């Protein structure tokens, strides 16, 4: 659990605010299409001998994954590789009805590798419908999309209902604390907060 808590902390530190992610998400492809694509992840993507960092370089181009230093962990590596496959598949197979191009691709890979893989083993995403749907919905949100045909509230409720993290009380609390720390730091660093408020005396 300590390792999972650490990985959740890494995700909390690099992720933008979740409310904002929901607020800014726009309609994207259907979950069923992504789920089908996820199930067909090619073996080379799951091969532990293949470097995820190199794979990311080929698929995502310039930039860095927050999960890269933790890819020695099999779950982190697998989670990242599956996310990379979803992006690569648009070129290797066919684009989704609404393309993932121009989405927040690094965040989408990181959320699978760090947040979801910490509490849901990536191999289960391949054979368990519920876990696969959680992975797809998580991936879509952090790519910047709502599932096709769903409004914001519905999409949020459906992901919350499948949230593996919420079933692990201790980890969920630890994650909530990580997010809290990041929210406070973000708030205090925000220029509007830094303008401060007028004060009336010395203390």
């Amino acid at each position, binding site marked *: 659990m300590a390792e999972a808590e650490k990985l959740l902390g890494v995700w909390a530190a690099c992720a933008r605010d979740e409310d904002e992610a929901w607020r800014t998400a726009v309609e994207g492809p259907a979950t069923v299409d992504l789920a089908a694509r996820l199930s067909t992840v090619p073996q080379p993507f799951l091969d532990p001998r293949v470097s995820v960092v190199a794979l990311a370089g080929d698929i995502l181009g310039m930039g860095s994954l927050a999960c890269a230093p933790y890819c020695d962990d099999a779950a982190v590596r697998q989670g990242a590789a599956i996310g990379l496959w979803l992006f690569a598949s648009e070129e290797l197979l066919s684009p989704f009805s609404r393309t993932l191009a121009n989405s927040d691709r690094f965040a989408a890979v990181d959320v699978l590798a760090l947040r979801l893989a910490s509490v849901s083993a990536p191999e289960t995403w391949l054979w368990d419908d519920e876990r696969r749907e959680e992975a797809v919905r998580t991936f879509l949100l952090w790519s910047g999309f709502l599932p096709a045909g769903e409004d914001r509230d519905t999409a949020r409720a459906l992901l919350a209902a499948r949230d593996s993290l919420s079933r692990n009380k201790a980890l969920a*609390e630890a994650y*909530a*604390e990580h997010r*809290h*720390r990041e*929210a*406070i*730091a973000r*708030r*205090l660093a925000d*220029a*509007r*907060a*830094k*303008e*401060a*408020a*007028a*004060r*009336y*005396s*010395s*203390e």
Partner: protein
Amino acid sequence: MSDPENPDLVNPLDLDEYRAGSSAALTDHERWPTLTEGGATQLTRWRTHPDAPTWVHETGDRLTEEQLDRVRRPLSRDGWLEEHLETARGLPRYRKLTGLTLLSDFPLIERRDLVTDLASFVPLDADLDRMVGGTSSGSTGAALMIPDDIEEVARSFHLLRDLVIAAGVEWEPDDERLALAYLVHQRQAFTYVSLISSFAHRPMARVNLDCSGWPTVESRARFLADANPQVISGNPSSLNELLADDLIGVVRPLAIFSGAMALSGPLRRALEQAFSAPVFDIYGLHETRPIAVRTDDGPFRVLDRRVVVEALDADGLPVPHGEAGELVVTAGENPLLPLVRYRTGDFGRLISLPDGGVGITDLEGREHTSFIASDGRMVACVDLTQQLQAHGAVGWSIQQHADGSILAHIAGGEKVSIKAGLEALLSQDVEMDAVDRVSQLGEGKPRRYFSAVSSPIRGSDVQARSSP
């Protein structure tokens, strides 16, 4: 001053955050959501006053209509401590601990805990929309960003007003005067004009009396004469400056508030005599907010608000009633930082006042120390603190000997920049000894100033005490 066109002329003492306008981010309607036409007129008047200093900052109280009435009233104290402890038990800092039944069950915390993990002291369900940043240079270590609550900050004005009224002095909105002038006297400071939305949108200003920021040498006197603030707040350095020849006759405050540092009896009496007004000495920390007040040489009275003061020994146990101990404060006014058993680093004796209130006597720890530069200028220790913190120092002991020479022991930070900053401030060589850790400075507070040359009270022969 710095010349952006010529880097060679950059003054090593100028700190970026004090560049005019560098921290302003809001519109006036965001600063004062209930801004009135009259208030806007006042803003313009004082911002553009021909004798106004260069305003470094712009900031307001951000109060909405529904908040105005709330901040005018003190928070209820009924059952507050139990509610406060229940909130604390849910903080990330404490939630894994068991056995936190009574106040005395809670572990002591100190400034270092806030610096290390501030968020663990902020409730998980805190309303971050009410959070603004308040920088605390403090007196016990590294600088700290405190999560200020806009309602609590606004309510602190009404605490001052309630104290003035309780002293039998009327303080009502006045169309012609600044409601309040918050004075500082230091090389660099955040200065601004604001409106007090909950006080009929009357104007107030944070004003730096340091001569460098005014259009002409006569400007500060003319500005203050025109503003004639109803109430003046400040610290002993800035209030002492109020006794300067050019200022002493120009203001007629209803009351004066001193905070941040120890106010000596002679300075308080000099202020009372000069302005015929009560002088309130407030004891408090930014982290805890005001704790106690006095208006004479007697004990401080712990304020009737959400605050509990304990006096503890070196082992963290209560000292017998009336004996000296470190003051440890539980503070419940700021909902964004509900502190339990916060070590202040200050020492005093708790006593019972005749009316049943709690008093603090022999309060020690808020040293008011000034240094004298080689050209005779008085340099307040806050100026040194700004430079030391800006260059990363985490602890220090700075001593000025009777012959004027300066010896500085510094823990942490950029040594070359620190030495250059101190020497520029004091216009003389500074002998500096760098240490690796604060503990190498010896026992006591991590920030210490000692001066064998004392700061004279303006207009008198009485010498203010130098800090021990």
